[in-house]
Structure formats: structure tokens, C-alpha cells
């Protein structure tokens, strides 16, 4: 059992879940408690012990289904057979594909329709009389003494044997196909091929049973399995087929379509849920920014007298409070200055940024916001006084700064240095939102360097992925060494990612 669970944990890790050894041990102990009798319970058990992040639950469920369900659903095989009947004409190309895929070649990505065809094809190689009895077994699930789940565990224990069987079958089929080159669709009607997989598997099943004795499964279970070996044998072709599918699914990389779908366009109209998400992400991020507000009482020269601490310190003076201990809430307010590029090149994104800025200003007391294109202007006031949409409109209207010229980080930095630098101090965190495209103008690294030395830390958030920096007139490579962090953020998700990242790297 342990090997199977370990293997499963490996699969989870490969798909980005973080499972510690302690957790997989927990999973084993837990399975020991609940037993393997029920699929659902085993699943809940593994989920509760192995998965600790909500985002991962979906992945887990998917992988669990794939990994531990070698058995077909009851409806499926027949449906597939029907398809086969109607689909007689796709002869050669699909059979070829089947042979190649099952032979262990890496499956490619455009796969769904593909798999179905393959199923159909595979079934062609077994005649229907052979298949019916095995289906009946699944039909009378309650008669089976050994639970599905433990069978699956056992079969998972020794994937090698099954693979071997599989390869041999494929090999045989290839030979046959070569012989029947002109009429590959007719393979089914020949007698010999059908027997083949069962012969191969009979030997391998014995191997499986042998392996069982090495495992820490109790004797009764093994005996049950042996009794059932007939049934398993009959079901084995299907098992093998599903094994292939399973292997493929397990290998398949997580698709990022969900992430892609939440593309930029959606960001502008914040749904309440997204608004909540941004808020949460910003809150989390703010915790990590130096100088964030804390609520903990700290000893200080001013504040309230703390009786327990005073007494404790003054025990040495017989409890006469010579030396009072004062404590107060330290409100280290985050001092944040945000510089937001609102030029044309980032127009779409700056809308998203301004929303973000707006929320930051709502959440924290000391946030100053500046917008720039070629000149720099403070808009803290605007954001405080008007609603979010109106504030954003006002910035783009051109009344604050001329928003329609080409962006010029150099002169903006120069202006910021001269005009505003004296008003911020070494406790301020500077957040720059911009793509660093200077349109060929002087990057003025010196001015930016002076700013970055003056403030506590500089976080630069850019929409441009790193590989794009070398293209066009992007001066990010020059600015990057001066920043404490450079983050690529295009969506709410990524913003949350940055926050998450900050949490991790701090420890």
C-alpha cells in the first residue's frame, strides 16, 4: 500500500501540489484507520491529509479519479461499442495512432476526441462475447468480495507487469497489422488475436499475486484476490486499456486555459468576487511591506502602564513599582508611494492599476499616489475625494497631466526627485507600476538611483514578461538592479501570486 500512496504523492507533486513526507505518512496512518473498503472514504481520507490548499482540491480530485479508477464506469463500454458500430470506416489512420500511442510514445496535447477513437479501436480487438462477461462483473458490483479500491491499490502496486503485458500486446498487434496491411479494419474477425491478451495477462497476474505476498496486506485479502483471479483475468483487457489512458492523463501537464480565460479584458469590469480577490491580495501584500500596521502591544516610553509587566519587573524592588513598564500599540503605518504610468502603451493596464491603487488608498492610511507620462503629478487628493470610476476618468481626461504624449521615465524620475523626494523618507516603500518603455529617451538611471537609495524599498510591477524587455525601447534591464523586487503582473491572479510569493520569500 505504501508504494502506491507514495507513487500517488509523486504524481500530486508533479502537478504542483506541495505534499510533505509527514503528510504522506499521515495519509498512510489515516488509511489504516478507515480501511480501504469504500472508494469515497478513501478519497476523503487522502484529500484531508494530503491537500491543504483550496486551489489544489480540484487538481487532487481529478488526479485521484484518474489514478484510482481503472475500472470502467458501467455505462461507458456499451456506449463505446455503439460508436464502434457506426464508425466502421476510419480504418488505417486511427489504428496506426493506436499502435504508436500504446507503444509508449509521449501523447501529444490535442487529445480529447482522439482518446475516444482510440477506445473504440481498442475494443475492436476483443470480440463481444469476451467482453460481456467481464462487464457483468461490473454490473454486479455488490457480489464482489474484494473492494474496487483495494484491487486498484494492488494493481497499482505493480504497474510494471501491466506495462509489460501491454507492450507485448501492442507488439503482437503491430505484427498482425503488418500482415493485414491492406485491410487493417478487419483485424477483429481473426481468431488468434483475441486470445492473446488473456494469455499474456495470465502469467502476469501470477506475478502480481506473488508481489502481493511481499506487501503488508493481510492474508485474507490475498486469498480473496486469488479467488477472484478468474474475474480479474477476464476484466484485465479493460484494465490495461484504462491503464494506458490513465498514464496519459497523469502525464498530461496542467492546462492553463483557466488562467488564460481570465485575460486582461475581464479585469476592467471588476465583478464583486474579483474585487474581493484583489482586496485580499493587496491586504496580503501589504502585510509584507515594511512598516505595515501592527496591532501588537510593544514596550515603549509612552503608553499605558502594563500591570503584569510592571509587577514582574519590580519584583526585585519588593513589588514597589519604581520602574513602570509602558506599552502601547505601535502603529507602524505603511508609507507607500505609488508611481503609476498612464501612457498609451499601458493604457489598458493602467486602468487596472488605478483600481488597485484606489483600493490600496482605501486600505491604508498613508498612501501617496502619483501618475506620470512625461511629467509627474500627485493624484492622492483626487483618489481620496472621488469615487473610483470618476477618479480614473479624471486621470485619463488630461486635466491632471497630458496623458497623450509618449512616456518618458527619465524626465518623470527627474521631476519626482526634485519635487517630491524631500517629502518622502527612508520608511517609504515605492511601488512603480509601469512597463519601462522610454521610447528612446534618456533613461536617466541616475535620478532613479537616487530615488531608490532614498526610500526603503522599491517594488516595480510591470506588465511585460521578462523576455519582452529586450525588444523595443524598454529600459527595464537598466532599472531592474535598482529595485528590490520586479514583478510581472497582468491579472488579479498574478497579483495574488505576487502577494503569495512575498509571503514565501520572507521566511
Amino acid at each position, binding site marked *: 500500500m505504501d508504494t502506491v500512496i507514495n507513487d500517488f504523492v509523486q504524481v500530486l507533486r508533479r502537478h504542483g501540489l506541495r505534499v510533505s513526507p509527514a*503528510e504522506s505518512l499521515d495519509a498512510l496512518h489515516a488509511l489504516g484507520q478507515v480501511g480501504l473498503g469504500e472508494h469515497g472514504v478513501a478519497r476523503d481520507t487522502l484529500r484531508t491529509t494530503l491537500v491543504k490548499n483550496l486551489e489544489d482540491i480540484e487538481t487532487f480530485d481529478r488526479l485521484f479519479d484518474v489514478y484510482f479508477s481503472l475500472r470502467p464506469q458501467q455505462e461507458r463500454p456499451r456506449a463505446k461499442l455503439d460508436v464502434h458500430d457506426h464508425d466502421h470506416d476510419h480504418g488505417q489512420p486511427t489504428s496506426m495512432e493506436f499502435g504508436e500511442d500504446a507503444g509508449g510514445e509521449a501523447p501529444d496535447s490535442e487529445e480529447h476526441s482522439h482518446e475516444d477513437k482510440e477506445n473504440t479501436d481498442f475494443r475492436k480487438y476483443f470480440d463481444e462475447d469476451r467482453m460481456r462477461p467481464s462487464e457483468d462483473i461490473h454490473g454486479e458490483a455488490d457480489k464482489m468480495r474484494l473492494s474496487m479500491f483495494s484491487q486498484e491499490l494492488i494493481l497499482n502496486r505493480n504497474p510494471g507487469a501491466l506495462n509489460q503485458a501491454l507492450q507485448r500486446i501492442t507488439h503482437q498487434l503491430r505484427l498482425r497489422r503488418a500482415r493485414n496491411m491492406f485491410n487493417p479494419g478487419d483485424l477483429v474477425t481473426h481468431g488468434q488475436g483475441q486470445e492473446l491478451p488473456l494469455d499474456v495477462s495470465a502469467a502476469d497476474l501470477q506475478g502480481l499475486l506473488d508481489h502481493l505476498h511481499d506487501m503488508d496486506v493481510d492474508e485474507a485479502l490475498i486469498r480473496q484476490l486469488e479467488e477472484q483471479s478468474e474475474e480479474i483475468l477476464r476484466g484485465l483487457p479493460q484494465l490495461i486499456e484504462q491503464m494506458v489512458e490513465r498514464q496519459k492523463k497523469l502525464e498530461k501537464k496542467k492546462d492553463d486555459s483557466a488562467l488564460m480565460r481570465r485575460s486582461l479584458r475581464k479585469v476592467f469590469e471588476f465583478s464583486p468576487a474579483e474585487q474581493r480577490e484583489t482586496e485580499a491580495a493587496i491586504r496580503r501584500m501589504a502585510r509584507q511591506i515594511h512598516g505595515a500596521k501592527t496591532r*501588537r502591544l510593544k514596550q515603549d516610553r509612552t503608553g499605558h502602564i502594563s500591570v503584569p509587566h510592571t509587577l*514582574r519587573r519590580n519584583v526585585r524592588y519588593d513589588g514597589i513599582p519604581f520602574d513602570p513598564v509602558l506599552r502601547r500599540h505601535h502603529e507602524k503605518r505603511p508609507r507607500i508611494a505609488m508611481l503609476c504610468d498612464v501612457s498609451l502603451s499601458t493604457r489598458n493596464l493602467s486602468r487596472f492599476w488605478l483600481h488597485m491603487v484606489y483600493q490600496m488608498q482605501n486600505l491604508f492610511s498613508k498612501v501617496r499616489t502619483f501618475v506620470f507620462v512625461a511629467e509627474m503629478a500627485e493624484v492622492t487628493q483626487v483618489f481620496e475625494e472621488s469615487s473610483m470610476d470618476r477618479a480614473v476618468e479624471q486621470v485619463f481626461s488630461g486635466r491632471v497631466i497630458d496623458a497623450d504624449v509618449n512616456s518618458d521615465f527619465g524626465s518623470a524620475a527627474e521631476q519626482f526627485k526634485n519635487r517630491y523626494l524631500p517629502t518622502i523618507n527612508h520608511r517609504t516603500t515605492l511601488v512603480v507600476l509601469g512597463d519601462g518603455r522610454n521610447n528612446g529617451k534618456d533613461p536617466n538611471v541616475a535620478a532613479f538611483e537616487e530615488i531608490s537609495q532614498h526610500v526603503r524599498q522599491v517594488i516595480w510591477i510591470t506588465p511585460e514578461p521578462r523576455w519582452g524587455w529586450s525588444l523595443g525601447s524598454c529600459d527595464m534591464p537598466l532599472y531592474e538592479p535598482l529595485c528590490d523586487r520586479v514583478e510581472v503582473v497582468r491579472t488579479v491572479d498574478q497579483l495574488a501570486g505576487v502577494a503569495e510569493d512575498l509571503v514565501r520569500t520572507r521566511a
Partner: protein
Amino acid sequence: MFESIEEVREKLAGQEYVCDRRLATVVYLAVKLDKPVLIEGPAGVGKTELAKALAAATGRSLIRLQCYEGLDEAKALYEWEYGKQLLYTQVLREKIGEFIGPTKGLREAAAALRDQEDVFFSENFLVERPILQAITSETPPVLLLDEIDRADEEFEAFLLEFLSDYQVSIPEIGTVKAEHPPVVILTSNRTRELSEALKRRCLHLQIDYPSPEVELEIVRLKAPGVGEVLADELVGTIQSIRSLDLRKSPSIGETLDWARSLVVLGAPSLNKDLIEETLSVIVKYDRDAAKVLAHVRGAAESKDLGQKEPTGEKQNEGMYEMHRSTHKHAH
């Protein structure tokens, strides 16, 4: 305590706590493996209730620690009782002559005193706070650390030792270890991400809004005055409201509040007007209210078109059906 997962379910049901098998499995494992359970989920889905029901079902006492920003070990673990210590000093001063009377010389007197030193930092002066209480208690209680996400990250760090070994190290005394580990339940509303270390030590359980069947059962149990028809409609409506994109979806608590207020109003069944009048019970934001109203009206109207003579009750039943189907789609 429990022999099977089914038993967990039955006993919790005996406390009017309806749960699915998944939840029962986790509770069963927590008890069997002596592991804390971390429950995450939106507000009002019965996270805290579970701890209460579990305590009642097993006949154990419930120790509850509500977490908040700035909660520190002095309030959660233990604190020294300084007043008592002071008093002791006074007593000791009077006794000290008597005590070192027979000794010869300063050295011996100091040695005699040294032997008594730990008198000050002994269990006598310790004020037990919830976590220490849970550890030292003779009969293992159920310890509920409510809304752990509200506490500071430093506080999570205190908890780590306790959660993994059910022990607390007090520098002056040593390690206090629980003989019978308590059942620990932590809840979180996910206002922030908890640390990996904490999560690793716990079994994880995600509770979401219940399925219509479970919610119906809850309404029947907890608001017995509600008639069958009304309960059906109520749950259907709530479920469909949850599928809207709201800032704050109505929780089970709000469903029950709504059910009870409808009982007070003596309503036999739901209708559009009634929903509008009592909306404030389930929806807490203006913008959400507008959305829900639009939704309810839309549902009622589309039904009007479909039926030629809508009688009050049938119309609502239809509405309920529709809600159920939208709900299924949402899944």
C-alpha cells in the same frame, strides 16, 4: 470515542448537526489519529457549530478561544499571577528569619534559599489560559480555536508546538504535555493564507454552502415551525441566490433567520412581495439586494409568461423548480 464513520454521523445528527460523509470521515480520522482539524470555508456554514456539536455528542467540555489581532501567548497559553507572587514575597519576608535561622554563615543561608527558588515559578502561580487548560484537563476536552486567520502570524508560530505534540514549553517550569490529547478544531474564514507549517499539522476540511438536500434537512431540524412547502421554496430560493455573484452570499445562519422570520410572519408560502419585504434578513449589502431583487422578479415574470393562470402556490413551486435546475447547472 467513535467506532465508525457512520457513528460519527449519527451522533452529530443527534446534536442537530447535519453533515455529509466527507465531514464525518474527517472528524473520525481526527479522533482516531489525534490530529487537529483545520476547517476553512465562508462565514456561516457551520464551522464553529461543528465543534460545539462534537463536544456535545461526545460529552466533552468545549474550550473556546476566539482569535483576534494582537492575541498573544499571555492570553492563549498561560500567564503568571503576579499579584499572588507579590503576596508570597511579603509572606516570605516574614518567614525568612525563621527559615534561615538555624543555618550558619551566609553561604549556607544562600544555599538554603536557592533550594526554595523555584517556589515563585511553579504551577501555583500559573494562570491557565485556554490552550494550557485543554492540555492539563483530566478529561480531554474539545478545543476550538475560532477564526485563527484573525490572529497574527506570530501566534500561529506559538501554536505549532501545541498542534504537533500537544505540549507547551514554559521556560520557567518545563514542558507540559497532555496525557489525553484534546480534540482540536481550528476554523478559518480565509481572510489571509495560513502558514504551510500550520496546515501541515492539521487535517484539512473545506466546508462549503450545503447542497439543497442537506440545507433542507437543516431547516427542518433547526426551524421546526416551517411547513414543508415553505421550507422547499425557501431553500430553493436561497440556493439560487447563492449562484448569483454577490459580495456576501447568504449563509446557513441567514437561511435559518429567514425561516424563523417567515414563521413569525405566519407566511404559508413564499411569493415575490414577501421576498422583497424580508430581503434584509438574508442580504446585507445594498448592491447585492438590488441584484437579488432583479433575479427574483425575473424568475417570477418568466413563470408568469409560461403559465396562463398562475395561482400563487403553483407559481412558487415552479420558481423553486427553476432554482433547483439553475443550481444543478452551477455545479
